[in-house]
């Protein structure tokens, strides 16, 4: 039975599908092929319901990555969720999630995208509330409702697509791109993508969704679900490049990147730090996408998926060993207690920072250099590079808190590095996050970008990273005689540490007045006047009439017959005298 658990079976299946998808994508990429499959489900009179699938190198590659990460995550959950009695439900939810992700990836049709999209929303809700405590419920509700905005936007976009007679958007994007309706569709799709990728007005759900089990965070909330929005916009990228949509998206995405980078520097929850770093990377993808470089966004999406999943898996291993504790103030000295996990953790952290020749370096460096040679204003430029520095800063802060010093948790602990199944799962991704970047770089870009920069600007990225790292490490260090730095600037750190108060705004702020109004309406209308004038009073009156009618029935038969005779007499009277 050891090899017949649901985890092992799904692992084998998924990894083999992933491998074949990868081979197919190579084939498609090299031969420059696209498969467009159309299956007519039903044909009624003049209307046909058609299911369409689009297979090109992008969808196949993304699919293979998603499947690979999913398979490793499932393999990893075999140990992580070992003591959970609902592990079967958990794995099935993850599989359903993967399924709807597949549907989303391969469909060039807004309806089937919506199916996959709603599937993602539903399953991610179920996964967030997997641990059934109040925190999870609240987080799940926030997640589901934020994503619902995007679902509604997609539905509206579908309604607007009716203008063109079909929902296969890929046929219309280029032809109709100057029309107002298409702009409207584009803005709605952008809204949907922003909710799914947690861009700035909707960011608060992503850190909240960390209430889910850690494998879910590794798969869903870092590498696949949140990148679904980016992927959707990659498909719609034509609409973004030549309109104000792209500019708006650039602003919001780079602000997201900035905000979450800052927030991660003030966060103390291990998973939330990684979630905020995901958010920052999503902002990076979105912003480079909004400038028109969709291939770069795709590239970063893939590499980011690799090392971020690894990072989450390491965090999961740590949390597992720390007995569910996620506060980084309780950690420390983990490099001594869990050397192998710490290695993976550091490698993925460095890949995130863009350490040369790791996965993140290729995509991130290229994005930044492309930003430098393109026409861009000072503000966006500042946001890009400051956020890059912040990324390194929070990574090193994390290293400082968790890896160095002594363990803060307590002398009685069970830290060890012998959870082999989890480690094996992590090793697979470790290799991928080392070689993945270069591999993808040579695959996706057979012809290198021509980037020509002065020496100082070329070194700007490096400089920013080194400075950020030093800053992050040193500023969180406290010694006996120095006050805590964020205590000195208390108000600012509270503001930045709670994501610019966005969680409050999108929960209490949204609900306060409508709820009050609802209470008023319920009290004075639903249970007040309308009940009085509608239900109760009407019923009372009808019953009264009924009683009166019964008074009329309450007579001898002769009275009724006499009434009839009187009526006949009246008729006769008319008959005779008119």
């Amino acid at each position, binding site marked *: 039975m050891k090899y017949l658990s649901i985890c092992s079976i799904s692992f084998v299946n998924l990894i083999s599908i992933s491998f074949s998808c990868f081979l197919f994508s190579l084939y498609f990429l090299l031969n420059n092929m696209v498969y467009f499959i159309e299956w007519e489900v039903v044909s009624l009179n003049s209307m046909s319901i058609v299911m369409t699938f689009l297979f090109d190198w992008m969808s196949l590659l993304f699919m293979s990555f998603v499947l690979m990460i999913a398979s490793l995550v499932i393999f990893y959950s075999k140990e992580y969720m070992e003591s959970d009695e609902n592990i079967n439900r958990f794995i099935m939810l993850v599989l359903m999630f993967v399924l709807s992700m597949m549907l989303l990836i391969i469909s060039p049709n807004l309806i089937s995208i919506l199916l996959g999209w709603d599937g993602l929303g539903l399953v991610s809700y179920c996964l967030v509330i997997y641990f059934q405590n109040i925190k999870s419920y609240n987080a799940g509700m926030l997640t589901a409702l934020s994503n619902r905005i995007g679902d509604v936007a997609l539905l509206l976009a579908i309604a607007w697509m009716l203008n063109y007679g079909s929902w296969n958007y890929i046929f219309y994007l280029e032809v109709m791109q100057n029309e107002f309706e298409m702009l409207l569709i584009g803005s709605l799709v952008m809204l949907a993508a922003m909710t799914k990728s947690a861009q700035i007005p909707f960011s608060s759900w992503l850190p909240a969704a960390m209430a889910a089990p850690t494998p879910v965070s590794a798969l869903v909330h870092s590498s696949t679900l949140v990148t679904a929005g980016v992927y959707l916009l990659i498909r719609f990228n034509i609409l973004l490049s030549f309109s104000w949509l792209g500019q708006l998206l650039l602003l919001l995405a780079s602000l997201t990147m900035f905000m979450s980078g800052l927030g991660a520097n003030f966060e103390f929850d291990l998973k939330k730090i990684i979630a905020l770093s995901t958010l920052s990377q999503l902002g990076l993808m979105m912003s480079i996408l909004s400038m028109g470089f969709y291939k770069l966004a795709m590239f970063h999406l893939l590499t980011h998926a690799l090392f971020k999943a690894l990072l989450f898996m390491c965090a999961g291993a740590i949390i597992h060993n720390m007995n569910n504790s996620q506060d980084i103030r309780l950690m420390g000295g983990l490099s001594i207690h869990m050397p192998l996990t710490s290695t993976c953790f550091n490698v993925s952290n460095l890949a995130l920072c863009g350490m040369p020749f790791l996965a993140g370096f290729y995509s991130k460096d290229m994005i930044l250099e492309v930003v430098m040679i393109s026409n861009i204003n000072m503000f966006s430029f500042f946001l890009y590079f400051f956020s890059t520095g912040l990324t390194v800063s929070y990574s090193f802060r994390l290293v400082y808190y968790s890896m160095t010093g002594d363990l803060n948790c307590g002398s009685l602990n069970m830290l060890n590095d012998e959870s082999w199944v989890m480690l094996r799962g992590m090793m697979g991704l470790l290799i991928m996050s080392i070689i993945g970047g270069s591999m993808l770089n040579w695959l996706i870009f057979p012809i290198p970008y021509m980037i020509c920069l002065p020496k100082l600007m070329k070194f700007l990225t490096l400089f920013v990273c080194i400075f950020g790292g030093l800053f992050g490490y040193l500023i969180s260090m406290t010694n006996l005689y120095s006050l805590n730095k964020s205590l000195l600037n208390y108000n600012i750190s509270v503001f930045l540490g709670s994501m610019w108060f966005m969680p409050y705004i999108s929960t209490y702020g949204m609900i306060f007045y409508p709820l009050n109004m609802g209470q008023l309406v319920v009290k004075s209308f639903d249970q007040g006047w309308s009940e009085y004038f509608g239900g109760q009073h009407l019923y009372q009156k009808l019953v009264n009439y009924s009683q009166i009618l019964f008074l009329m029935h*309450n007579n*001898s*038969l002769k009275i009724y017959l006499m009434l*009839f005779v009187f009526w006949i007499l009246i008729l006769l009277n008319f008959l005779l005298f008119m």
Partner: protein
Amino acid sequence: MIMILYWSLPMILFILGLFCFVSNRKHLLSMLLSLEFIVLILFFMLFIYLNMLNYESYFSMMFLTFSVCEGALGLSILVSMIRTHGNDYFQSFNIM
């Protein structure tokens, strides 16, 4: 004008009969009797009418048959009522 006389008398008699039928009586039997009276008036009226139609008065036989049946039925109900109620007072009926 003379035509009105043919049917004004039965009409008045009919109305009186109707009143007799529905006005409040003690006994059911008196109601049945007044019903017979109405039937007689109707017979009279029908007779006048049939005289107009070339004295084709065979229908009056049928009418008489029906009215007798009806009277017999009324009487049988009366008997049935006396068997169940013990009297033929109209007021002993339940209302509703």
